[in-house]
C-alpha cells in the first residue's frame, strides 16, 4: 500500500527489526548531543553566556570616552589605541562603519570586554581565530575573554549594517 492511500486497519504497531535498532541508536546519539552542551558549560572554556546589561547608546558612548581617556597609549589612523588593566574592563564601540578603540591586551590575562553599538546591529568577528558575537544597540554585551595567543587580530563586521558593511574593520593587539 502506498503512502498516498489510506493505511489498512491495525497499522499502529511497535517498530521492529533494523528500524527499531536504528531508532534506539538515533535516540542514544540525540542524548549525547544534548548532554554535550551542559558538559561543556561546566567543563569547557568557550561559552556564550549572553551576559548583558541595558544601556542607552549615549550612555555607552560616555563610558567608552571615559575608558579611552584613562587608558589611551597611542593612535593609529585616527583611532585611539588603549591598554586596559589586566582583569579589568575594556570597551569596543561599534558604529557605521568602524570599531573603536584598538585594544592592546596581554597574553594570558583576562578582560571583561564590553560590546555595544551606537546605531544598527553589528557582528563582532575576531579573525583569524573566527570567534563571533552579536553586537546590539541598547545592550552592553560583556565577554570575559582571555587571549591565549599573541599577534594582531582583526575585527570584521559580520552583521549587515548598510552599504559600508564590508569596510568595517577593527583591531585587537595581543602581546
Amino acid at each position: 500500500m502506498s503512502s498516498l492511500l489510506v493505511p489498512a486497519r491495525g497499522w499502529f504497531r511497535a517498530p521492529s527489526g533494523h528500524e527499531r535498532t536504528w531508532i534506539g541508536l538515533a535516540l542514544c546519539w540525540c542524548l549525547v548531543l544534548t548532554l554535550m552542551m551542559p558538559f561543556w558549560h561546566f567543563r569547557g572554556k568557550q561559552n556564550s553566556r549572553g551576559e548583558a546589561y541595558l544601556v542607552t547608546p549615549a550612555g555607552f558612548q560616555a563610558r567608552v570616552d571615559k575608558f579611552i581617556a584613562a587608558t589611551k597609549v597611542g593612535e593609529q589612523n585616527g583611532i585611539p589605541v588603549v591598554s586596559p588593566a589586566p582583569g579589568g574592563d575594556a570597551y569596543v564601540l561599534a558604529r557605521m562603519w568602524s570599531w573603536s578603540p584598538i585594544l592592546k591586551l596581554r597574553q594570558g590575562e583576562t578582560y571583561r570586554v564590553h560590546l555595544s553599538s551606537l546605531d544598527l546591529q553589528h557582528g563582532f568577528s575576531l579573525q583569524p581565530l573566527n570567534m563571533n558575537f552579536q553586537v546590539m544597540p541598547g545592550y552592553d554585551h560583556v565577554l570575559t575573554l582571555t587571549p591565549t595567543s599573541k599577534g594582531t587580530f582583526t575585527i570584521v563586521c559580520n552583521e549587515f549594517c548598510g552599504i559600508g558593511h564590508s569596510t568595517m574593520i577593527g583591531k585587537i593587539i595581543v602581546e
Partner: protein
Amino acid sequence: MSSIVQTLADGTKRLVNPGRVCATTGLSVCSTAQRFIKLNAVAAVVFLLVGGVAALLLALTRWQTVHLLNAEWFYRIVTLHGLNMLIFWILFMEVAILYFTCTTPLNSKLFSKGVAWTSFGMMLTGAVMVDVVIFKGQGDVMMTSYLPLLAHPAFYFGIILVAVGTLIGVFNFFATLYIARRDKTYEGSMPLVTFGALAAAIIAVVTLLHGAIVMIPTFSYSMGWTPQPDPMWYRLIWWGLGHQSQQVNVCAMVACWYFLASVTTGARPLNEAVCRTAFVLYVLFINLASAHHLLVDPGIGATWKIWNTSYAMYLAVLASMIHGFTVPASVEVAMREKGYVRGLFGWLTSAPWGNPGFSGFFLSLVIFGFGGGITGVTLGTQQINIIAHNTLRIPGHFHVTVVGGTTLAFMALAYYVIPLIFEKDFIGRKFARVQPYLFGGGITMLAIGMSFAGSMGVPRRSWDIDIAGVYGPAAHLMLGLVGIGGIIAFTGLLIFVLLCVGTLLFGASTEGRAMTDWGVAKSVTGAPTAQLGEHDHSATKGTFVLTLIFLTCFAVYYFANWKALADVWPVR
C-alpha cells in the same frame, strides 16, 4: 457534476467527488483544487526564476576574482534572492502541495474556491509589492530586516500580506480535511502523505503567527505610528518565524519523499506508526528552535540557550533521523520484492536513476541528510556556534537543507505534478533526466565552498572580503568553488524552469490517458512475489549500513568541531 464510483486495485469501490479520475494513478482529482495547484505552482516557478537570476549574480559577486556587482546592488540582490527563494518560491509551492494532499489522497473536493482565490490574491499582491520595493532601492535590509534597519512600509505590508494569504490557504487545507471527514470521502486514517502535510500545516500556523506578532509592530513603526520595537525582541520573535518555517519545509519535503518513493519504486511505508510518530515529533518539539539563531546574542542566558537549542533534547532531530531510515528502507524493501536482491546495495544501483522523480528525491534525501542535517545540528550547538555565527558556514548549511533538500524535492515532484495535474507530458525529457544531477551537484559544490570559506572566517552577506586583509588564497579558492558551483546549480535551475514553461506551452496533452512513464522500477522476471516484512533483517540491511555510515560521519564532524572550538580563546 455527477459522482463516479471508482474501483481500487484491491477490488474495493469508493465514491469519487466531482472532478476527474487520473488515468495514471486511478485517484480522483478535484477540478477546483487542480486549478489552484496550477496557479500556485506557476507563481512559485516564476519566483524561483527571479530568485535564480539573483542567485547567479550573487555567486558571481562572492567569487572574489569575478566580483560582478557593486556593493549597493549586491546587498539589494541578497535581499531579493532571500525573499523570492525562501519565502515566495517555497510558500507558493507549499500551498500547492497542501491543496493536493487534502484532496486527491482523501478523495475529497477542495473546501472553497473563494478562500483559495483570496489566499492566492493576497500572496501574489504581497510578493509583487515586496519585489517592487526592493528594486526601487527602498528595502535594502536583507530578508531578516533586523531593526533598527528600516525599509519602506510597503515592504513590511507586503510580507504581512504574503503571511496572511498563506494562513488563509492553510485554513482552506484544514477546512478540506474537516469536510472530507464529515462527508466520509475516505475511511480509516488519512494517508501518510496527507498526514505529513498536516504536520507542516500545523507548524505553519504557529510560524505565521510569530510573523504577524513581529511584522505588525514593525510596520506600524515604519509608518511612524508607534515607537521602535526592541531589536533583541525583534530577533527573538523573528526567528520564531524564520526557523520554524524551515520545519514546515522539512515536513513538506519528507511528505514529497514518501510520495515520490511510492510513485517511482512502488514503495510503501514499512511501519506507518513510526513514520507518523516522527511527524508528530516535529510538531511537538520544533517550536523552541528559534534559539539557535541567538546563541551568541546578548541578554539571553546559557540555560535558556541550551534548553532551547536541544529543543528539549533534539527530538526533532530524532524525527529526521527516523525518516532518513524509513524512506530509503521502504525503497529497499520495494526493490527487493521486485527481485533486486543482489548484495547489500543491488537494490540501490538498480533503482530508476534516469527518472528525475526518483533521482531528484533520492539526491534530496542524501544531500539533506549528509549535508544539511549534520551541519545544522553541529552549527546549532550552543557553544560551537561561536565559531560559526554569521560566517559563510551558515548559508553553506541552509543551501543543503532548503535548496539541495527541499527545493530539489519540489523539483522532483514537478516531474509528476505537471503530467498528472496540468495533464501535459514533459518536453525535453533527456534534459529532465540530467537536471536533478546538475542542480544537486552544483548546490553541493556551492555549499562545500561556503562551509570551508566560513570555517576560515569569511563572513556571510559581505560584498568584499579583501578590505579586511586577513583571508588568504585558501579562502579565495573556496569562494571560487561557490562561484562555479553556483553557475552549475543555476544551469540546473534554468533547465528546470525552461522545461516547466516549455511543457505547459508545448507539451503533449495527457488528458484521458496515462502519463508517459519516466521509467519506474519493474519486477525482475521470476522474482518471488512474497511481501517482505520490516522485521525481516535481510530486507533492510543496505539501508541499515547506510545509516551507520551516516552516524559515523555525523560523529566525526561533530567532535571535530568541538576540537576546533577548544582551540580558540577562552571566553565566558
